[in-house]
Protein backbone atom coordinates (compact mmCIF):
# COMPACT_ATOMS: atom_id res chain seq x y z
CA UNK A 1 0.00 0.00 0.00
CA UNK A 2 1.33 3.41 -0.93
CA UNK A 3 2.46 5.76 1.83
CA UNK A 4 0.21 8.66 2.81
CA UNK A 5 2.24 11.78 3.48
CA UNK A 6 1.16 15.35 4.23
CA UNK A 7 3.66 18.06 5.11
CA UNK A 8 2.88 20.17 8.17
CA UNK A 9 1.58 23.71 7.82
CA UNK A 10 0.98 26.46 10.37
CA UNK A 11 -2.35 24.89 11.31
CA UNK A 12 -2.40 21.33 10.03
CA UNK A 13 -0.24 18.45 11.22
CA UNK A 14 2.44 16.52 9.43
CA UNK A 15 1.18 13.07 8.58
CA UNK A 16 3.37 10.17 7.57
CA UNK A 17 1.74 6.78 7.20
CA UNK A 18 4.39 4.61 5.63
CA UNK A 19 3.79 0.83 5.73
CA UNK A 20 7.01 0.00 3.89
CA UNK A 21 9.08 1.51 6.71
CA UNK A 22 6.48 0.59 9.33
CA UNK A 23 6.39 4.24 10.37
CA UNK A 24 3.15 5.99 11.27
CA UNK A 25 3.16 9.47 12.75
CA UNK A 26 0.94 12.51 13.19
CA UNK A 27 2.94 15.50 14.38
CA UNK A 28 3.22 19.26 14.88
CA UNK A 29 0.09 21.43 15.17
CA UNK A 30 -3.46 20.50 14.47
CA UNK A 31 -5.69 23.56 14.47
CA UNK A 32 -7.65 23.30 11.22
CA UNK A 33 -10.88 25.21 10.93
CA UNK A 34 -12.51 22.14 9.44
CA UNK A 35 -10.90 19.21 11.22
CA UNK A 36 -13.38 16.69 9.86
CA UNK A 37 -12.43 17.56 6.29
CA UNK A 38 -8.72 17.34 7.07
CA UNK A 39 -8.86 14.03 8.96
CA UNK A 40 -11.33 12.22 6.72
CA UNK A 41 -8.70 11.02 4.17
CA UNK A 42 -6.37 10.00 7.03
CA UNK A 43 -9.15 7.97 8.60
CA UNK A 44 -9.99 6.35 5.25
CA UNK A 45 -6.34 5.50 4.60
CA UNK A 46 -5.92 3.86 8.02
CA UNK A 47 -9.17 1.97 7.59
CA UNK A 48 -7.95 0.56 4.25
CA UNK A 49 -4.53 -0.20 5.68
CA UNK A 50 -6.00 -2.11 8.62
CA UNK A 51 -7.63 -4.60 6.31
CA UNK A 52 -4.12 -5.94 5.55
CA UNK A 53 -1.67 -4.36 7.99
CA UNK A 54 1.92 -5.16 8.92
CA UNK A 55 2.41 -7.51 11.84
CA UNK A 56 2.84 -4.59 14.25
CA UNK A 57 1.57 -1.07 13.99
CA UNK A 58 2.54 1.75 16.32
CA UNK A 59 0.89 5.09 15.60
CA UNK A 60 2.92 7.97 16.99
CA UNK A 61 1.27 11.20 18.06
CA UNK A 62 3.84 13.96 18.48
CA UNK A 63 1.65 17.01 18.62
CA UNK A 64 2.49 20.46 19.85
CA UNK A 65 -1.09 21.78 19.97
CA UNK A 66 -4.44 20.49 18.84
CA UNK A 67 -7.83 22.13 18.98
CA UNK A 68 -10.97 20.42 20.26
CA UNK A 69 -12.21 19.80 16.71
CA UNK A 70 -9.01 17.83 16.09
CA UNK A 71 -9.39 16.08 19.46
CA UNK A 72 -12.62 14.54 18.21
CA UNK A 73 -11.05 13.39 14.97
CA UNK A 74 -8.10 11.88 16.84
CA UNK A 75 -10.62 10.04 19.03
CA UNK A 76 -12.29 8.74 15.89
CA UNK A 77 -8.98 7.35 14.59
CA UNK A 78 -8.16 5.79 17.96
CA UNK A 79 -11.57 4.13 18.11
CA UNK A 80 -10.88 2.68 14.68
CA UNK A 81 -7.55 1.28 15.91
CA UNK A 82 -9.30 -0.12 18.97
CA UNK A 83 -11.73 -1.98 16.73
CA UNK A 84 -8.87 -3.72 14.93
CA UNK A 85 -6.62 -4.16 17.96
CA UNK A 86 -8.46 -7.32 19.00
CA UNK A 87 -6.99 -9.13 15.99
CA UNK A 88 -3.83 -7.14 15.24
CA UNK A 89 -0.92 -5.85 17.30
CA UNK A 90 -1.65 -2.16 17.40
CA UNK A 91 -0.35 0.42 19.85
CA UNK A 92 -0.12 4.18 20.25
CA UNK A 93 2.94 6.13 21.29
CA UNK A 94 1.99 9.50 22.75
CA UNK A 95 4.81 12.05 22.85
CA UNK A 96 4.76 15.08 25.10
CA UNK A 97 7.23 17.68 26.28
CA UNK A 98 8.33 17.36 29.90
CA UNK A 99 6.62 20.59 30.96
CA UNK A 100 3.48 20.02 28.88
CA UNK A 101 1.02 18.62 31.41
CA UNK A 102 -1.95 19.39 29.17
CA UNK A 103 -0.59 17.22 26.35
CA UNK A 104 0.15 14.39 28.79
CA UNK A 105 -3.35 14.72 30.28
CA UNK A 106 -4.90 14.57 26.80
CA UNK A 107 -3.02 11.35 26.04
CA UNK A 108 -4.00 9.85 29.36
CA UNK A 109 -7.61 10.73 28.72
CA UNK A 110 -7.55 8.80 25.43
CA UNK A 111 -5.74 5.90 27.11
CA UNK A 112 -8.48 5.72 29.73
CA UNK A 113 -11.33 5.88 27.22
CA UNK A 114 -9.97 3.70 24.45
CA UNK A 115 -8.94 0.14 24.97
CA UNK A 116 -5.60 0.07 23.21
CA UNK A 117 -1.99 -0.06 24.38
CA UNK A 118 -0.58 3.42 25.01
CA UNK A 119 3.05 4.30 25.65
CA UNK A 120 3.94 7.76 26.86
CA UNK A 121 7.23 9.29 25.91
CA UNK A 122 8.87 12.60 26.74
CA UNK A 123 10.66 14.27 23.83
Amino acid sequence: MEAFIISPTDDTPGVKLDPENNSFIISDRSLPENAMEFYQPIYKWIERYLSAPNQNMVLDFKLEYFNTASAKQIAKILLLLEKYSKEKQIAVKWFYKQEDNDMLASGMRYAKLINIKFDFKVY
Partner: protein
Amino acid sequence: MEINIEGVKHTNLIKNPNHFNIFYHGIFNQESLLNFISFLESQNIKGIIRKKIFYLIIEMFQNIIRHADNIVSDSDNTPGMFSISENEKEFIITTGNYIHNDSVETLKQKIEGINSLNMEELDHSYNRFLIDFNIEKVDKIGLGILDMRIKSESLLQFHFHRIDENFSYFILQTKVLKN
Protein backbone atom coordinates in the same frame (compact mmCIF):
# COMPACT_ATOMS: atom_id res chain seq x y z
CA MET B 1 0.00 52.19 19.95
CA GLU B 2 -1.57 50.53 16.94
CA ILE B 3 0.25 47.57 15.47
CA ASN B 4 -0.27 45.99 12.11
CA ILE B 5 0.32 42.27 12.00
CA GLU B 6 0.04 41.06 8.42
CA GLY B 7 -3.64 40.45 7.82
CA VAL B 8 -4.50 41.48 11.36
CA LYS B 9 -5.37 45.12 11.47
CA HIS B 10 -7.12 47.30 14.00
CA THR B 11 -5.07 45.74 16.75
CA ASN B 12 -4.04 47.84 19.66
CA LEU B 13 -1.17 46.86 21.83
CA ILE B 14 -0.60 48.61 25.09
CA LYS B 15 2.58 47.32 26.53
CA ASN B 16 4.71 48.04 29.53
CA PRO B 17 7.82 46.17 30.64
CA ASN B 18 5.84 43.67 32.72
CA HIS B 19 2.38 43.32 31.25
CA PHE B 20 0.70 43.49 27.92
CA ASN B 21 -2.84 44.24 26.82
CA ILE B 22 -3.93 43.53 23.32
CA PHE B 23 -7.25 44.36 21.74
CA TYR B 24 -8.34 43.13 18.32
CA HIS B 25 -11.41 44.10 16.40
CA GLY B 26 -11.86 42.98 12.85
CA ILE B 27 -11.91 40.00 10.56
CA PHE B 28 -12.20 36.62 12.22
CA ASN B 29 -10.90 33.85 10.04
CA GLN B 30 -8.22 31.17 10.19
CA GLU B 31 -5.62 33.47 8.63
CA SER B 32 -6.12 36.17 11.24
CA LEU B 33 -5.91 33.52 14.00
CA LEU B 34 -2.59 32.22 12.65
CA ASN B 35 -1.21 35.74 12.41
CA PHE B 36 -2.37 36.39 15.93
CA ILE B 37 -0.64 33.24 17.22
CA SER B 38 2.52 34.08 15.36
CA PHE B 39 2.52 37.54 16.92
CA LEU B 40 1.92 36.15 20.42
CA GLU B 41 4.72 33.64 20.02
CA SER B 42 7.07 36.54 19.64
CA GLN B 43 5.94 37.89 23.01
CA ASN B 44 7.64 37.03 26.23
CA ILE B 45 5.12 34.64 27.79
CA LYS B 46 6.93 31.79 29.44
CA GLY B 47 6.37 28.36 30.94
CA ILE B 48 3.26 26.24 31.37
CA ILE B 49 1.00 29.31 31.30
CA ARG B 50 2.04 30.03 27.70
CA LYS B 51 0.59 26.74 26.48
CA LYS B 52 -2.62 27.17 28.46
CA ILE B 53 -3.17 30.65 27.08
CA PHE B 54 -2.52 29.49 23.55
CA TYR B 55 -5.06 26.69 23.89
CA LEU B 56 -7.64 29.16 25.14
CA ILE B 57 -6.87 31.70 22.43
CA ILE B 58 -7.28 29.06 19.73
CA GLU B 59 -10.59 27.76 21.12
CA MET B 60 -12.06 31.19 21.81
CA PHE B 61 -10.98 32.63 18.47
CA GLN B 62 -12.29 29.62 16.53
CA ASN B 63 -15.47 29.77 18.57
CA ILE B 64 -16.13 33.18 17.03
CA ILE B 65 -15.24 31.94 13.52
CA ARG B 66 -17.66 29.01 13.85
CA HIS B 67 -20.54 30.30 15.89
CA ALA B 68 -20.83 34.06 15.68
CA ASP B 69 -23.81 35.44 13.81
CA ASN B 70 -23.12 38.20 11.36
CA ILE B 71 -25.01 41.40 11.93
CA VAL B 72 -24.11 42.59 8.44
CA SER B 73 -25.68 40.12 6.06
CA ASP B 74 -23.49 40.85 3.02
CA SER B 75 -20.18 40.54 4.87
CA ASP B 76 -18.30 37.26 4.58
CA ASN B 77 -16.20 37.81 7.65
CA THR B 78 -17.68 37.61 11.09
CA PRO B 79 -17.09 40.76 13.08
CA GLY B 80 -16.13 40.41 16.69
CA MET B 81 -13.59 41.46 19.26
CA PHE B 82 -10.83 39.66 21.04
CA SER B 83 -8.62 40.85 23.85
CA ILE B 84 -5.89 39.52 26.08
CA SER B 85 -4.77 41.39 29.11
CA GLU B 86 -2.51 40.66 31.96
CA ASN B 87 -2.26 41.80 35.54
CA GLU B 88 -0.10 40.73 38.47
CA LYS B 89 -1.95 37.49 39.11
CA GLU B 90 -3.68 36.41 35.91
CA PHE B 91 -4.18 36.51 32.16
CA ILE B 92 -7.66 37.53 31.01
CA ILE B 93 -8.95 36.53 27.59
CA THR B 94 -12.18 38.14 26.39
CA THR B 95 -14.17 37.69 23.22
CA GLY B 96 -17.21 39.51 21.91
CA ASN B 97 -19.50 38.65 19.03
CA TYR B 98 -23.03 39.12 17.81
CA ILE B 99 -25.54 36.33 18.17
CA HIS B 100 -29.20 36.01 17.26
CA ASN B 101 -31.51 36.68 20.18
CA ASP B 102 -33.15 33.29 19.74
CA SER B 103 -29.78 31.61 20.57
CA VAL B 104 -29.22 33.57 23.78
CA GLU B 105 -31.23 31.47 26.22
CA THR B 106 -29.75 28.13 25.06
CA LEU B 107 -26.20 29.47 25.24
CA LYS B 108 -26.82 31.06 28.64
CA GLN B 109 -28.16 27.81 30.07
CA LYS B 110 -25.29 25.85 28.55
CA ILE B 111 -22.61 28.07 30.12
CA GLU B 112 -24.39 28.17 33.47
CA GLY B 113 -24.63 24.38 33.34
CA ILE B 114 -20.91 24.04 32.63
CA ASN B 115 -20.05 26.54 35.38
CA SER B 116 -22.07 24.51 37.87
CA LEU B 117 -20.01 21.34 37.30
CA ASN B 118 -17.08 20.36 39.49
CA MET B 119 -13.83 19.16 37.89
CA GLU B 120 -14.85 15.50 38.03
CA GLU B 121 -18.18 16.24 36.36
CA LEU B 122 -16.46 18.42 33.74
CA ASP B 123 -14.08 15.59 33.01
CA HIS B 124 -16.95 13.14 32.60
CA SER B 125 -18.83 15.55 30.36
CA TYR B 126 -15.74 16.19 28.23
CA ASN B 127 -15.20 12.44 27.76
CA ARG B 128 -18.79 12.01 26.65
CA PHE B 129 -18.44 14.76 24.02
CA LEU B 130 -15.07 13.44 22.90
CA ILE B 131 -16.12 9.95 21.87
CA ASP B 132 -19.84 10.30 21.19
CA PHE B 133 -20.20 11.32 17.55
CA ASN B 134 -23.96 11.76 17.66
CA ILE B 135 -24.10 14.16 20.59
CA GLU B 136 -23.14 17.28 18.59
CA LYS B 137 -26.04 16.78 16.22
CA VAL B 138 -28.34 17.74 19.08
CA ASP B 139 -25.94 19.77 21.21
CA LYS B 140 -23.73 22.04 19.11
CA ILE B 141 -22.16 23.83 22.05
CA GLY B 142 -19.88 21.20 23.42
CA LEU B 143 -16.26 20.31 23.58
CA GLY B 144 -14.81 23.75 22.91
CA ILE B 145 -16.57 25.49 25.75
CA LEU B 146 -15.91 22.59 28.14
CA ASP B 147 -12.25 22.82 27.20
CA MET B 148 -12.19 26.55 28.02
CA ARG B 149 -13.58 25.85 31.47
CA ILE B 150 -11.19 22.94 32.14
CA LYS B 151 -8.03 24.60 30.80
CA SER B 152 -8.67 27.91 32.55
CA GLU B 153 -9.63 26.15 35.81
CA SER B 154 -11.95 29.06 36.46
CA LEU B 155 -15.61 29.89 35.92
CA LEU B 156 -16.53 31.27 32.52
CA GLN B 157 -17.67 34.87 32.81
CA PHE B 158 -20.29 35.98 30.32
CA HIS B 159 -22.75 38.69 29.47
CA PHE B 160 -25.40 39.26 26.81
CA HIS B 161 -26.12 42.81 25.74
CA ARG B 162 -29.29 43.18 23.72
CA ILE B 163 -28.67 45.30 20.59
CA ASP B 164 -32.09 45.21 18.92
CA GLU B 165 -34.97 42.84 18.26
CA ASN B 166 -32.67 40.52 16.27
CA PHE B 167 -29.22 40.58 17.80
CA SER B 168 -27.39 40.59 21.10
CA TYR B 169 -23.71 41.06 21.80
CA PHE B 170 -22.17 38.11 23.62
CA ILE B 171 -19.14 38.69 25.84
CA LEU B 172 -17.20 35.65 27.07
CA GLN B 173 -14.23 35.81 29.38
CA THR B 174 -11.76 33.29 30.80
CA LYS B 175 -9.04 33.92 33.35
CA VAL B 176 -5.88 31.95 33.91
CA LEU B 177 -4.00 32.30 37.16
CA LYS B 178 -0.27 32.80 36.79
CA ASN B 179 0.53 30.53 39.73
